């Protein structure tokens, strides 16, 4: 990659300088990482899996329309008098590809499709917001230092020692009861927003701490001194000099935080925290299915497998991304 040195002034004989087409464009570190990522088979497979899952989530209403089944449609006529779906394997048929839920008689496929959609909306929103907060806090703490750094670091430590689940069990119903009476139906969007909020409050510290550490070491590099010697202000240094060097860790923590939020969201609903919404959901499905483990195991298995696939794909992709962005870390 390194050019021989004396390819200097003599290379251009004309006074106009090189034509734009002759400009040698180097590969940016990002392009190098992208090439590495594209060569990685694990990354490709998990990326395609994620693409398919995201497409399903995005086009959930379309799928619902094509199938002719809404997320709240029930099919009591396809269940027997104790609520078990008719037919084999939980009522699998040409109309209900993955069968029906016992008792409620919802179509499992459509429940899964919408569950995936809700789960991904929550996970992506929570990941974007918490990563943003973490990056801002980390850069400010790391660059400004002093008491600002001390207070942000203290806040990070404080939030890290709070037990998340206990806190969620206490606050979610409390916040809901503040805005809605017990007889009012809680809108799905409101409940999802609440979960995103609680994930964000408890989710930014990891990124914040990581970014702070990176900034503390970057701050001492000479190119930061060069910018200061040219009269650059703190905003220029933080945004233009430091931030571009943080994209790699930010991307990696972002993609590795997504599966955490997916399972976290399922766990909250599995435990029945913040119930109130009627939106289809993985956690609620698995919880409901526990009573039918023996009579209808497919009901438990199917949402479980989808969560497994989603989380696995996220994790594999995140790992590949880290390897591509920082090949030294694996050595």
């Amino acid at each position, binding site marked *: *990659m*390194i*050019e021989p*040195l004396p*390819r*200097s*002034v003599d*290379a*251009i004989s004309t006074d106009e*300088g*090189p034509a734009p087409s*002759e*400009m*040698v*464009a*180097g*590969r*940016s*570190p990002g392009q190098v990482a992208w090439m590495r990522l594209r060569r990685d088979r694990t990354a490709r497979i998990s990326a395609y899996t994620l693409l398919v899952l995201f497409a399903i989530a995005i086009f959930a209403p379309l799928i619902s329309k094509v199938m002719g089944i809404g997320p709240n449609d029930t099919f009591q006529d396809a269940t027997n008098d104790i609520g078990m779906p008719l037919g084999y394997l939980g009522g699998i048929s040409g109309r209900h590809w993955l069968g029906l839920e016992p008792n409620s008689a919802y179509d499992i496929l459509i429940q899964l499709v919408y569950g995936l959609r809700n789960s991904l909306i929550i996970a992506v929103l929570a990941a974007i917001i918490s990563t943003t907060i973490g990056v801002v806090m980390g850069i400010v703490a790391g660059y400004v230092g002093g008491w600002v750094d001390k207070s942000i670091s203290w806040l990070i430590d404080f939030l890290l020692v709070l037990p998340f689940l206990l806190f969620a069990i206490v606050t979610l119903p409390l916040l809901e009861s503040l805005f809605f009476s017990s007889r009012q139906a809680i809108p799905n969007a409101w409940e999802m927003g609440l979960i995103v909020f609680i994930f964000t409050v408890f989710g930014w510290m990891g990124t914040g701490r990581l970014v702070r550490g990176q900034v503390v070491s970057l701050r001492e*590099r*000479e*190119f930061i*001194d*060069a*910018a*200061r*010697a*040219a*009269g*650059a*202000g703190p905003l*220029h240094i933080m945004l233009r*000099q430091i931030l*571009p*060097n943080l*994209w790699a860790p930010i991307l990696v923590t972002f993609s590795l935080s997504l599966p955490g939020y997916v399972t976290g969201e399922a766990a909250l609903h599995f435990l029945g925290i913040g119930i109130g919404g009627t939106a289809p959901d993985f956690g609620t499905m698995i919880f409901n299915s526990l009573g039918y483990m023996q009579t209808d195991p497919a009901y438990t298995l199917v949402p479980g497998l989808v969560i497994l696939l989603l989380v696995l794909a996220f994790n594999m992709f995140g790992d590949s991304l880290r390897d591509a962005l920082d090949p030294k870390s694996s050595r």
Partner: protein
Amino acid sequence: MTEPLLKVESLVKHFPVRGSGAGRHVVLRAVDGIDLTVDRAETLGLVGESGCGKTTTGRTIVRLAKPTSGKITFDGHDITNLGQRALKPLRADLQIIFQDPYASLNPRHTVGSIVAMPLVVGRIKPPGGVKARVQELLEIVGLNPEHYNRYPHEFSGGQRQRIGIARALALQPKLIVADEPVSALDVSIQAQIVNLMRSLQREFGLAFLFIAHDLSVVRHFCERVAVMYMGKIVEVGDRHEIYETPAHPYTRALLSAVPDMNAPAGHKRIMLTGDVPTPIDPPSGCRFRTRCWKAQTKCAEVEPLLAKGPGGSLVACHFPEIGPLAGVQPKTAEEVAS
């Protein structure tokens, strides 16, 4: 005599030392009262061994560090205690080149944006546009302007240092503090970079404060030389005074340590014994006395001040050496020509 471009008076930079006893005010005396002047278009070399405060001096002069006390006057302005904002207009005239070309370029920026950074930060619109100016600068430092869109990792150490020089030149400074600009480079590349700086110095009338520990590079580049030891300047003078008739024992020891192909057989090196004392608790009187072969009781009691020495240079020593350095070479043809 006209006012010098840079005037440093009794500059002091102390760093607080952590982890010392509670309540005790312990400081590391990195720079402990030095005086310097650099005239317009002059090259002053600042030499000394590692840890003697050379780099801190340079960083304090370009105000990357705040001086503990003393006074820095640059181009008629007292910049000792100016805030970063008030300093900004003067930054254009006062630039720095760093030691490590691998750390001094932002790895995520293209060469073009690295060199353009001072222009962007200073909101300067050169005639013909930023890009044309940057390509002109790249050409000035001997790089291919087509490399505008490349990234630092694609360049060798010497090329990177050229990029750093182009960045320092972007604002057309009057003084460049070069903090060991060649010590991280291969010897074969060092000469190229020093020659580049010399031609730039002549072409643009730049003044250089050239910080180095390599005496032969300084001799090649600098008209005047200051020798530092433990935060103090022990000797300062014109190049030929320092190199031919050095008066301070430390200067002699440094010079005799330079490997010399033409040294006569039996040439004796002055071997300094002992370690450099800690700058947290420097010796009383003359700081060099603990390692000096001429030290006497007076050296521990009275701190020597810079005064005209026998060789013509200013020297801070009670018992300066007299006469030419043993085994000193006559001027090389190159020096005579310059």
